[in-house]
């Protein structure tokens, strides 16, 4: 090994450890009683280690309920976004329709706007859209899952259309032309012919979108007022209010919140990274 190589390794190792350290610190803090850390600091040797805080986070603050809320939002969110975006991308990239580029720009640019620009009018409008009781116990779109799901879908459509259209352009057009000669309609061309070829891109986007919707903080904060309906990421903020003094309990809460995305990432690493890079490097 040349000395240069050793230098590179030392550098990368140091940076990696620095990147991991805050996460490990959070895990470490969550395993220790608060009295101990408040006396000796977070950076001290442990006297007691236990999983008590995890049990407490689940039992006292109802983390399970918040996880369910997240799923109510993220699962339909991801599925509907992928379905609608894949059809738009199909129409733009495969049917070569007139005005397709304008549509693509409309969607792509929409995804790049700052969220705060659309928050105010949506807040006002959602407060005025009545929903029947079986759909929302607040009787309006505001303070219901519908509002958050709709915003997630509307906002993420742009990114998915952009990525999927780029991907579909790399598929051979001949397959589609053969199908058209055989008399396949638009739906068949989309559902039976194009979509199966997009499986890798859909898996990548699905992974990425799930992570984003799971991690979202702002939409739920603005559009949901009832603390019991909050998704897990926003609920963490409430937990802070309730257990303000006990940082170690909060550390346990943070680890619980972070765990699903970390697991998804480690299991589906390739998909996750593919999703991020599909849109950026033009093949």
């Amino acid at each position: 090994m040349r000395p240069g190589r050793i230098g590179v390794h030392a550098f990368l190792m140091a940076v990696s450890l620095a990147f991991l350290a805050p996460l490990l610190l959070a895990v470490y803090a969550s395993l220790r009683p608060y009295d101990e850390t408040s006396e000796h600091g977070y950076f001290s040797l442990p006297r007691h280690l236990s999983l008590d805080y995890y049990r407490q986070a689940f039992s006292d603050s109802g983390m399970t309920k918040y996880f369910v809320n997240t799923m109510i939002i993220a699962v339909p969110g991801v599925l509907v976004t992928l379905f609608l975006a894949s059809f738009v991308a199909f129409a733009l990239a495969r049917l070569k329709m007139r005005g397709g580029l304008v549509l693509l720009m409309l969607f792509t640019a929409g995804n790049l706007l700052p969220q705060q620009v659309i928050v105010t009018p949506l807040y006002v409008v959602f407060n005025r859209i009545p929903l029947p009781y079986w759909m929302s116990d607040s009787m309006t779109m505001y303070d219901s899952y519908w509002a958050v799901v709709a915003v997630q879908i509307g906002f993420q459509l742009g990114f998915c259309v952009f990525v999927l259209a780029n991907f579909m352009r790399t598929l051979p057009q001949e397959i589609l032309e053969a199908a058209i000669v055989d008399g396949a309609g638009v739906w068949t061309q989309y559902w039976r012919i194009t979509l199966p070829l997009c499986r890798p891109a859909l898996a990548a986007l699905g992974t990425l979108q799930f992570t984003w919707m799971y991690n979202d903080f702002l939409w739920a904060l603005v559009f949901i007022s009832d603390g019991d309906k909050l998704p897990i990421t926003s609920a963490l903020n409430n937990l802070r209010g309730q257990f303000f003094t006990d940082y170690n309990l909060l550390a346990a809460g943070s680890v619980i919140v972070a765990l699903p995305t970390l697991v998804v990432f480690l299991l589906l690493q390739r998909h996750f990274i593919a999703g991020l890079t599909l849109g950026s490097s033009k093949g």
Partner: protein
Amino acid sequence: MSFIPARRTGRRVARRFTGRDLAVLGVLLGIPVLLDVAIVWGPTLASVVLSFTGWDGIGDIKWVGTQNYRNLFTNYPQFWPAARHNLLWLAFLGLVAAPFGLLLAVLIDRGVRFSRFYQSTLYMPVVLSLAVVGFIAQLVFSRDQGALNAVIGDTGSPTDWLGDPDLNIWMVLLAAAWRHTGYVMILYLAGLKAVDPSLKEAAAIDGAGEAQTFFRIVLPTLRPVNVIVGVITVIESLRAFDIVYAVNHGRNGLELLSVLVTDNIIGEASRIGFGSAIAVVLLAVSLGFVATYLVQELRGERNR
């Protein structure tokens, strides 16, 4: 506005759609377009309109012309600090975090051993929510028990990293950069894989040094990635919200434009017109960058 003409070359395939095709197209294109207009573009326009009114969200909508903007620029003490913080955010992510991500990508791309481990570790913060990052920042930077003060042995008069309004923005920026670096690195790693190795070989044969090859050959071919990284950096800096909100609700040195918008529209005194004016300032800045980006994309599209 010009449309790209349908492809004229080659045999013309019969392109007439049947009635059923048109129905499918109408519904499945119509729904997403409607959603996009209703959720994104309509509200954006509405924000612009509302920014010229003095509205509290309940009573009548009153036109006040540019008064909100005048108040914002001259009479709202939080505005300029918030704008400065957003700029600082942009500068820090763009000039520190992004180049650092590029450096890491270049080092890893050279095929060192354990590169999988390095990659995974460095990406990892990207999947954490900013709310969690904000909380972890508190564990590290808190004054009395924080790990940072313990490491540097600052026990006599400990520094209040997140409480001191002159310091806390830098600490929060470090936390934001923790995530941004990994994100940028992924994008550059993908870009570097696509660089044609024969280009580098040719440069080496011509006697170019490593640095020369990188700046003259590799970096220019990474242009599409550079553009994406630039856009993401701008967008992230303007959208920044979660971390500061998780740390202290964006007060006491951590003001950001996004926080001011949120503060003005939710809560007791909702000043929708005024909040919209702040949002429009954000919009104007980001649209400048988005338009530049789209023009680039459009050119690429034409050349396909």
